[in-house]
């Protein structure tokens, strides 16, 4: 044994009372021949940690194995600097808190975990941070609207070089064309100047911000800190190196031309909110048809929104925008009759105060559905609608202006299907991606999108993330939002971009394995060009050359290990996480003879949700089956099928995979890891049946962190099934 390992067993938190500690240290010293094994009643206390530090200095330990509590806690206490590998053996949550004290099975479990931990520690190497030449920390902001300018300003204020690219000839975007904005400050009732003028002024004077207007992006190659961006302006190309990217390309109003049923395009006095905004900015709100004054105005909310034929979703800000525009009309002629026909008034948060203010100005709100709009000889409109609160058909006559509140469409997509088609009616409007970033990625040139074409990743937990490392979508390109949320979003994205360049330049991973210094290494001489890794990487980190050789981009990598699980040749490994390492951990488990009637179950648990759920079961002292041996994996997608073979040939009776929920509302931190695991598993079942091994021996269960109460049930149920099947026929070979 070349490595110098020290094993420390904590006897606090009732570990000492429940287990036979001398026997446990014998496993380390006698069986595993570890030169140093110590016990301490309070290992996470000052004295305990101090003792380990002294040993590291005196004995020159490279690796310490801490047999105590879960690796999810006290990680700061047991951090002994970057040159010491720390391996944690979870004796507390997953052994003594979930199993009876002074029990043969509990002791066997603790001993197995210690064997596995020492085996893993033996094979772990210190990661060497990935470094490349010319890594930069500048930030590219795509889009010069409210979100883009805010992101640029915030990043510059934090001291980072910013390159701002805008397609149009001037900055400002959608908000730049607004007359006023809805209230954002107490008392939340007065219209305000938009924040645009101030933002533009700040960006103009900032020495750190380089603005390129009238410019598009021809190509983005590389990865975080190493992006080679090619800009295109008037046919001329220029290139620069960039650290990370904030994508703030905004949204545009839904095409009102598709709203013929509301009279748009047929009658000149039916206009969109955007057109009204233009009129207000120019100072005159008049009937477009004949320039006469507006005495009766009707605002139609949800025009083409929350409508399966058009946009099925709510754009969240059109209500407030329309309230604001209703005030524009009232400001100019207080005697005008203004009606707002709504489905629901969604004025969230403090906007409720604004809603009250608009009501108190005499604007009349009608919950209704517009059924038809017609025009008389003098271009007066008549709006017919079903009044849902009076339950009658109603109408507004002699209307001068009808304003349609259209929803938002992310600029990354275009709606492919025309309204009224079958596809639209089914609610899944097909979208066509718009060229914007032009990424030189194997997985395509743009950010993958979730539903409705909004680019996003893991909308439940990590709204700022996208599925392309180092590229952060912000503002209304990501989700429909108002001005305040857009600015907040942009600030967040700027901070994420800064975090990304800082971590990446040190060779560390970004979210969710923040700070992980390891990265996948490929033993290329054995590669068979099967393309599984390039295909399955959820973040598009691996490109391909013409011969289908994988070209890894370590700075794009999030260290989930999905490629390692995918590789049939097992050529991908991390310094501290590899296929043989887990294989040896499985082999370290002592499997009792068949006649002892003590089956063994290996549980591969995702470290993000399933492993914490097991810990939670421990914290709640929920007892479960003592046959299980849990192995934490980075993502269930990193599970290589060879581990199933390893387990079965070792005589393990069953294998349980605990991963995150997948599907449309997936919870996998790495988007589709658990789904991939399930797909791979379905392939292995056939093989098992062929080998006279019941495919029921391998099971996958989706588990979320809240499901900790189900843990005992899941484990016991699986154990029962195994008893029914009988012992593994390969036992004892």
């Amino acid at each position: 044994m070349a490595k110098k390992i020290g094993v420390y067993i904590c006897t606090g938190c009732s570990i000492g009372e429940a287990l036979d500690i001398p026997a446990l240290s014998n496993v380390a010293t006698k069986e595993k021949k570890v030169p140093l094994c110590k016990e301490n009643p309070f290992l996470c206390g000052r004295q305990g940690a101090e003792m380990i530090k002294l040993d590291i200095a005196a004995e020159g330990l490279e690796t310490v194995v801490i047999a105590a509590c879960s690796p999810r806690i006290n990680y700061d206490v047991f951090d002994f600097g970057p040159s010491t590998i720390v391996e944690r053996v979870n004796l507390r949550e997953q052994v003594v808190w979930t199993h009876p004290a002074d029990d043969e099975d509990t002791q066997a479990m603790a001993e197995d975990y210690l064997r596995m931990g020492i085996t893993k520690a033996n094979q772990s190497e210190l990661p060497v941070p990935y470094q490349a030449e010319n890594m930069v920390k500048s930030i590219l902001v795509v889009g010069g609207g409210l979100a883009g300018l805010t992101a640029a300003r915030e990043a510059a204020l934090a001291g980072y070089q910013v390159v701002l690219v805008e397609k149009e000839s001037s900055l400002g975007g959608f908000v730049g064309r607004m007359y006023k904005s809805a209230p954002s400050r107490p008392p939340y009732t007065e219209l305000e100047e938009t924040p645009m003028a101030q933002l533009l002024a700040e960006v103009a004077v900032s020495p750190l911000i380089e603005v390129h207007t009238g410019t598009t992006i021809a190509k983005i190659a590389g990865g975080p800190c190493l992006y080679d961006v090619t800009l295109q302006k008037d046919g001329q190309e220029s290139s620069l190196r960039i650290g990370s990217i904030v994508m703030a390309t905004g949204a545009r109003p839904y095409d009102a031309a598709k709203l013929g049923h509301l009279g748009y395009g047929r009658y000149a006095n039916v206009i969109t909110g955007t057109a009204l905004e233009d009129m207000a900015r120019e100072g005159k709100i008049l009937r477009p048809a004949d320039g006469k004054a507006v005495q009766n105005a009707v605002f139609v909310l949800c025009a083409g929104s929350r409508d399966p034929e058009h946009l099925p979703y709510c754009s969240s800000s059109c209500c407030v925008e329309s309230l604001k525009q209703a005030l524009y009309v009232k400001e100019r002629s207080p005697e005008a009759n203004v009606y707002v026909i709504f489905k629901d008034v969604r004025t969230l948060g403090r906007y409720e105060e604004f809603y009250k203010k608009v009501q108190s100005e005499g604007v009349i709100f009608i919950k209704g559905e517009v059924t038809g709009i017609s025009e008389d000889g003098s271009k007066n409109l008549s709006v017919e609608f079903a009044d849902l609160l009076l339950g009658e058909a109603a109408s507004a006559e002699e209307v001068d202006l009808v304003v349609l509140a259209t929803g938002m469409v992310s600029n990354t997509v275009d709606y492919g299907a025309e309204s009224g088609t079958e596809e639209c009616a089914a609610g899944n409007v097909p979208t066509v991606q718009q060229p914007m970033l032009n990424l030189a990625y194997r997985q395509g040139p743009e950010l993958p999108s979730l539903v409705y074409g909004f680019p996003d990743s893991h909308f439940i937990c990590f709204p700022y993330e996208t599925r392309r490392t180092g590229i952060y979508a912000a503002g209304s390109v990501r989700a429909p939002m108002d001005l305040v949320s857009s600015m907040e979003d942009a600030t967040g994205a700027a901070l994420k971009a800064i975090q990304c360049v800082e971590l990446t330049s040190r060779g560390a991973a970004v979210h969710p394995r923040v700070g992980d210094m390891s990265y996948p290494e490929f033993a290329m001489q054995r590669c068979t060009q099967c393309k599984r890794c390039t295909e399955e990487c959820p973040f598009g980190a691996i490109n391909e050359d013409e011969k289908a050789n994988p070209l890894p981009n370590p700075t794009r990598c999030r260290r989930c290990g999905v490629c390692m699980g995918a590789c049939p040749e097992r050529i991908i490994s991390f310094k501290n996480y590899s296929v043989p390492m887990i294989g040896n951990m499985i082999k370290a488990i002592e499997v009792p003879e068949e006649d002892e009637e003590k089956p063994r179950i290996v549980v591969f648990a995702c470290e993000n949700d399933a492993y914490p759920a097991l810990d939670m079961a421990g914290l709640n002292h929920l007892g479960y089956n003592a046959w299980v041996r849990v192995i934490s994996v980075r993502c269930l997608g990193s599970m290589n099928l060879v581990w199933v073979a390893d387990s079965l040939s070792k005589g393990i009776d069953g294998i349980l995979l605990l991963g995150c929920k997948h599907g449309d509302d997936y919870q996998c931190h790495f988007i589709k890891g658990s789904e991939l695991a399930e797909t791979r598993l379905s392939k292995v079942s056939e093989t098992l049946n062929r080998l006279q091994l019941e495919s029921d021996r391998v099971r996958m269960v989706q588990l979320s962190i809240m499901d900790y109460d189900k843990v005992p049930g899941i484990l016991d149920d699986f154990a029962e099934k195994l008893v029914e099947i009988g012992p593994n026929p390969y036992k004892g070979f």
Partner: protein
Amino acid sequence: MADANASPGRLKYDAGFAREVYGLENGSYLKQCMQCGVCAVSCATFKIMDYSPRRLFALIRAGRKEQAMKSNTMWMCTSCLMCKARCPRGIPIIDVMHDLKGLALKQGYVNYPQAALYEAFWKDLACRGKVFTGGVIKNYVLKRGLNNLPKIIGQQKDVGLKMLSHGRLPLLPPKAPKGKKQLMQMVKRAQELEQKGAK
């Protein structure tokens, strides 16, 4: 709910009547109504009203003056304050109801017995400074018309006799209160102010 007096044909929105109501003392609170219906579910007499307060407000904003003014909603309001206490928009609904009653009487929209009793009660109070049940009954009967007297007696006979036997129906008017003159001056002044405010 009785919707018998709903006008036929399509309802045309017209803000004229709403503006008239906004001009009443508490009328402008009506603008704040967001039609949540908490008043309706809180109302003790909701079941005997033509329209719930929510619906009445919706009718006013839609401009259905006839339908709103002729409804019994405000006359069935017992001023229990439950709606006012619960309204999330803080509308003093019973005060709005009082204003609407005033408007309906002033413009001669109603001929309800409840409305007659309101007037009879006030008339007696305003001339006596105190309420005398006999005086109220007299005013009420005159208000409803003498030809209705047999009907009223028939309806109220049992209640009247019971009240009499409990000593709740004094036969002689009470003594005038102290400072009746000043009280009358106050009432007069208040009415003058109201007249002025209405202009």
